[in-house]
């Protein structure tokens, strides 16, 4: 069965493969990875220093791969609703539900963050009900501007490494760290290339495809992903480019890994050519300084100096300018600010950003939505009306 799915996957071109990579434990490469005795660690927030996990040398030459925990494919949230009540966002409930359904049993460990109120408080349920072999917390300060905060985060990174290391391996050697750092920098550069191809006058791929590639990136060992993406990029460049779109839009707001939202938007003829999401452009923003003598610190620095998530209680101006910059790069006709119902952070952040963006003369649409793509008809009506409003 495994090898079969593997064969099927192997026949496809690298691009097709990235676009159709099966989810979670059905992912043939994860099956392959685990079969070799390697470990997989899940994490929930973009403030998790992934490369540090990737650098940890496992016992007997095994490896440890970080994957980002998402909620794609979640069809019900019964148990999660019972545990968490209706005021918790559907993304948090979906991920927890998947975990309770055993969808994340392939994970050997989970790294949590003090990211947002909803997600951080599902830690207890993972710890007590899902019970991964390792579950650890990275306490991330809510400001990046002071050395004290940075040192705290830096220590948190080291502690996380040690906690995982002491169970399955050792602490990484300098060259192991350097390799991991290089791999992740390469990954970010390649993803930026994808964004460049999306921003072209004739974009080489749809937003939906871009999200699928991003999704694949969350769920493959980055070395392998980089390899495939390099080839996939050649395939993309060879494409004629999309011309029959109705409008170019940028997607901003709450956590979005499920392509179905983008599908809904693009089903109106709009093309999502860029985004300012923590699952997208923000995720690959900024590189680690490879020349640093203390690479762990350099990694921590990167996470503290990349464009912030509004859970950081500062820099709305920077985030607004970031969105303006992206909008210019990708020559967008409008920006869609979406937030998942009950997401306090992006509800208010979208008000701040969209008002400023509107003042700058870029058309904006604010959408409230559930994580799981229900109610698509009404979302679609809103988006279509938005396009009509901006004369597209």
């Amino acid at each position, binding site marked *: 069965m495994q090898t079969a799915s593997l064969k099927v996957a192997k026949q496809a071109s690298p691009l097709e493969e990235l676009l159709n990579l099966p989810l979670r434990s059905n992912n043939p490469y994860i099956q392959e990875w685990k079969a070799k005795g390697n470990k997989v660690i899940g994490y929930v927030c973009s403030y998790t220093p992934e490369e540090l996990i990737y650098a940890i040398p496992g016992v007997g030459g095994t490896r440890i791969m970080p994957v980002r925990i998402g909620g794609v494919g979640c069809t019900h949230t019964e148990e999660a609703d019972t545990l968490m009540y209706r005021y918790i966002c559907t993304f948090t409930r979906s991920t927890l539900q998947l975990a309770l359904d055993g969808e994340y049993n392939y994970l050997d460990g989970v790294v949590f963050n003090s990211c947002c109120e909803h997600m951080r408080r599902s830690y207890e349920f993972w710890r007590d009900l899902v019970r991964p072999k390792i579950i650890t917390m990275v306490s991330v300060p809510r400001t990046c501007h002071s050395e004290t905060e940075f040192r705290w985060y830096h220590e948190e990174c080291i502690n996380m490494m040690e906690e995982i290391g002491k169970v399955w391996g050792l602490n990484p050697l300098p060259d192991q760290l350097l390799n991991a750092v290089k791999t992740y920098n390469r990954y970010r550069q390649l993803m930026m290339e994808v964004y460049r191809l999306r921003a072209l006058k004739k974009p080489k791929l749809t937003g939906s495809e871009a999200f699928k590639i991003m999704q694949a990136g969350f769920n493959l060992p980055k070395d392998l992903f980089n390899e495939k993406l390099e080839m996939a990029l050649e395939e993309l460049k060879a494409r004629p480019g999309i011309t029959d779109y109705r409008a170019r839009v940028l997607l901003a707001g709450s956590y979005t890994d499920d392509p179905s939202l983008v599908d809904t938007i693009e089903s109106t003829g709009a093309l999502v050519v860029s985004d300012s999401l923590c699952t997208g452009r923000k995720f690959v923003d900024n590189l680690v300084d490879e020349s640093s003598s203390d690479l762990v610190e350099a990694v921590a620095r990167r996470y503290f100096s990349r464009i912030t998530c509004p859970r950081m209680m500062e820099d709305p101006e920077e985030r607004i300018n970031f969105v303006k910059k992206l909008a210019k790069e990708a020559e967008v006709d409008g920006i869609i600010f979406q937030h998942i119902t009950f997401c306090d952070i992006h509800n208010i952040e979208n008000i701040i950003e969209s008002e400023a963006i509107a003042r700058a003369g870029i058309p904006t649409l604010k959408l*409230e939505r559930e994580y799981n793509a229900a*109610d698509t*008809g*009404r979302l679609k*009506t*809103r988006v*279509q*009306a938005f396009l*009509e*409003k901006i*004369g597209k």
Partner: protein
Amino acid sequence: MIFAGVDVGSMSAEAVLLDEKGIIAYSIIVVKPNPVQSATIVMEDVLKQSGVKLEDIAFCVSTGYGRERIPFAQHNVSEISCHGKGAVWVNSKIRTIIDIGGQDCKVIRVDGDGNLVDFVMNDKCAAGTGRFLEGIAKTFGMHVSELGALALRGVNPVPINSICTVYTNFDVMCFLADGWSKEDIALGVANVLAKRLVTLINKVGLEEEICVSGGVAKNQGVVRALEQAIGKKVQSLPVDPQIVGALGAAIFAMERYRILGERKKVATN
């Protein structure tokens, strides 16, 4: 040259035929379960009325929740744009349209050409939609169109606080049982509906003139309650407010036909 607009909503479907001189004919039906079926029937009806043949229609635009599935429409436009377009066409002073449909309730702001400036749509709860009133009317054993006149005669509106439409129906039954007059209940219902509309209106703001479109616009009780709630006058439209969406679609059909025509010219020259 004849243009058509067809609007398939969740409760009713409308079709409008239009030429340069104005509205030729229109038709309103209660929806058949299937949008395509509804569209076909309402279109056949309006054709029959006017003696126009389908092939005489130069261009047809569909709107409403079934808009993408209408076989005889060459193009579809969101109901939000259509209501804006239609309202301004019948009264050029209109800048805000409050459309109360079967399931959706929208507040639409437009410019002098009827193009969208801003809009907002209710969240997915029946409270404050046409269905809400339909339910009440059912409880009264009367047609929804009779509610308005009833509410106008109300004096002491009943206090309704349940959020859910289904429960409001039950509350209404209780008020009846407790001996309240239908008039006062209808007024209470109109007020609570108006209150829910205001929270929506607040999100985009109002610019005068204001009008109400959709079936509920015929409910004078709701309109008056709304006027009191927003402290502004609501313009009554010279056409049946229920056809505003379909009319808007027909106007888009006319505009689109012209644009395409010009493009063709450019192409042939």
